[in-house]
């Protein structure tokens, strides 16, 4: 559930932020949302990755189709994507997703350090820390 909420929040808020802020606002959005959600870092990474992968990929496909692929064809040759529009779309989406994932993972690690949420499944780890 948390994962789904996190995914939806990152996807929708970053979509809005990228309309009028630089592209890297997506990293900040993923960071903040993950901080608030307080999931484990790999879960956060995944939700950030998927959220941006989907928004970037879907938007790229939308633009690609409206343009009948004219520009994608040229760019897929100019950039090292072997002339394949599909690879270029995938490549952009994976790249955006990775940045989203990084932002999200960083957010959750920060939360973990400064304001850890007690998580039932994490008890072992917490105990270890208390002992120390």
């Amino acid at each position, binding site marked *: 559930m948390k994962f789904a909420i996190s995914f939806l929040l990152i996807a929708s808020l970053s979509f809005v932020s*990228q*309309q009028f802020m*630089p*592209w*890297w606002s997506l*990293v900040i959005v993923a*960071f903040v949302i993950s901080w608030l959600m307080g999931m484990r870092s790999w879960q956060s990474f995944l939700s950030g990755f998927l959220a941006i992968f989907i928004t*970037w990929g879907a*938007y*790229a496909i939308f*633009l*690609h189709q*409206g*343009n*009948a692929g*004219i*520009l*994608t064809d*040229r*760019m897929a*040759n*100019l950039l090292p994507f072997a002339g394949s529009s599909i690879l270029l779309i995938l*490549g*952009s989406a994976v*790249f*955006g997703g990775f*940045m989203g994932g*990084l*932002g999200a*993972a*960083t957010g959750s*690690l*920060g939360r*973990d*350090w400064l304001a850890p949420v007690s998580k039932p499944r994490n008890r072992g780890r917490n105990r270890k820390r208390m002992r120390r």
Partner: protein
Amino acid sequence: MRAVKFILMLLFTVGLTYMLNNRFAPLPPMGKFLSPFFGFWQNADKIDISYAQDIQLASLSGSVEVQYDDRLIPHIFAENNRDAMLVQGYVTAQHRLWQMEFQTHNAAGRLSELIGERVLERDKETRRMGMVWAAQQSLEEWKKTPEYYDLVEAYAEGVNAYIESLSPKEYPIEYKLLDYAPEKWTPLKTALLLKQMSRTLASKEFDLENTNTLQWLGEETFRDLFPEAFPKQSPIIPSERKWNFKPVKVPDSKPVIPNTDKLSSIFQKMPEGIGSNNWAISGDKSASGHPILCNDPHLPLSMPSIWYEIQIHTPHLNIYGVSLPGSPGVIIGFNEHIAWGVTNVGHDVSDWYLLDWKDGQRGEYKYEGKYLKTKKVIEEFKVRNLGTILDTVYYTHFGSVAYTDENDASNDMAYRWMAHERSNELAAFFNLNKAKNYDDYADAIGVYSCPAQNFVFADRQDIALWVQGKFPLKRKEQGRFLQKADGADSQWAGFIPREHNPHIKNPERGFVSSANQHSTAPDYPYYYSGASFGDYRGRRINQVLAEKEKMTIKDMMALQNDNYSLQAADCLPFLLQYVDKSTLSKEDLEQVELLEDWDYIFDQDKIAPSLFKIWFKKFYTITWDEFYTYARKSGTALSYPDYWRTIDFLENQPEHPFFDIAQTANEKETAREVANASLKAALKAAKDWETDNEKPIKWQSYLNTSIQHLARIPDFSLNGVQTGGDQYAPNANSSWGGPSWRMVVEMGNEIDAYGVYPGGQSGNPGSPYYDNFTKFWATGQYYPLLFMKTPNNEHKRIITTQKMKP
């Protein structure tokens, strides 16, 4: 532990984000660039054009409507000329902003700001040539006609209004690739653009090369190899024209040619073969009884296209034609009364003067027994990733000291160039745009000085042609070689009075034409020399126009697309007569038969044109082997004999000493041996080409016409456009250049006009309108031009309308 993890991750994320937001040449800032919200994806224009419908432009005085037709040609309807030019600036920027700015950065010697050190030398050459200075001179002249200067300012306001409306994600894609932002447009940029045309068209000279060659060969041989008049030529103004004026006296003393010490080349030369065709036929010669005017300017082709097609309608004006992105008005086109077109005049209007410095400081130079001071200008280059570089340029009263060696001032030369003169090209074009008859036309172009053009004219009654420009008064052979800067007699003695410029109106033969050949027959009373007079196209066009009667628009289009090369016709029979068939293999014989059966037409799917081209080139280089050897050994820049002269020797002096091959000391070769040796080499080269390329050496494949993107971005260029034609045929295609606009206009009661250019209206490689005309152009087809009298949303060819309001 958690802190460490977090901090490491944070550093990694922030660091990576920072890196991807910045440029590591040659890569663009990848994060920005790949983002669909911001990067190149945003330049993927919708297939269905959707422009903002209502636009506020504060400096308009009335409302303006722009209707786009199905080829994306804007038809501007404005209430006055100022508003019209403002909107021309706006819509041109909307389609061509990056090109406009890049071209003027190039003209101003500022490319290194965008590209870096790689182009710094080119920028330095541009500044030393005095391009910016020349543009500033123009601007001062324009200000003297405030009614026209106001229009240039309006154009700039329009461009700037468009730039201000853009957010960075809407910048043209090239800005994103090179990671920079557009700057404000100014009237100076318009002046720079026009100076760049002078650089392309009116800077060709071989002063240094001729001088070196003369010193090497001696006077007699030089004159034998480099005669100035071509006996077969068919000049622009036919020899029937008598010059019934009293020419201005020019001193008849011989120019003194200084000794040089085998200098190497001065400026980068424009490639050979920039030329154009235009002609007009009278009503008597046309099937419809109405005059027809045609023009196809040949230029180095580039993407985005050189030309931007446009219609501008106001209560005082209704013009249609092609404009240069960056310059208001129309350069080649027609209005409701007249049509006009241009080709380049090949006269040499740039000369070099060897300076006699007082000392190595370049502060004073000798002139008429006294020492004159130079003016020092420090040029600043803000080179990308390198910082500011300074370069000092010295100015003499001749012009800038453009040829220098930092360590040795003894060969410094000053550059005298017509484009440095004050001129008002703008007034010429604005007045031409609104001309109603011959007198208006002749008056309008009277102030036009550089680059000189053959202005062809037609209205419903008359046809005419003026060779128009400001031409220096020269003594015989002045400016053909280097000159010394130390005396007044080496200066230009003044200028040819404008009314003495060659011109003709309604000639008996029923047509006027030009294709960059000599302006006049040798009886014209003023001396001029040229570095790029073409002859074959002009001869061919004049032949066809003289032979045919009652010509139609179709005939005109056929002549513009005519692939018949007189050069091949002049040359090939004399090469073939020498072929020794007994020494050829069966395969080679078949190739020779192809050449024997060939009709000299450079059609795209024939093999013979490729074979001839390679053969003639080999024949030329073996014939003039002495030149190549000497140039290589001495490091000297030389002039090379013209093709026509080479063919002339082949035909008339096959035993000319230059046919002897220098390396074979004991044998004496003639044209016969050279023809056979070059044939064997050519057939081998053709075979090798076929092996390497794995296809037959058809002309279109060998020619391989390519239209390069201005910044040489490979995937924005159009490579291997399949087309025929040849530089020496009317359809003057080469691998890098060709007809940049073809236009045919019949001056009936309703004007009937056709046109096409390679590329498309949009400068955006992501637009369906980027290169949509190219195929049509390559196959010799034309679009009917939509010349509107009133705005009409309902017209079936109008696809969208923009409304602009103050």
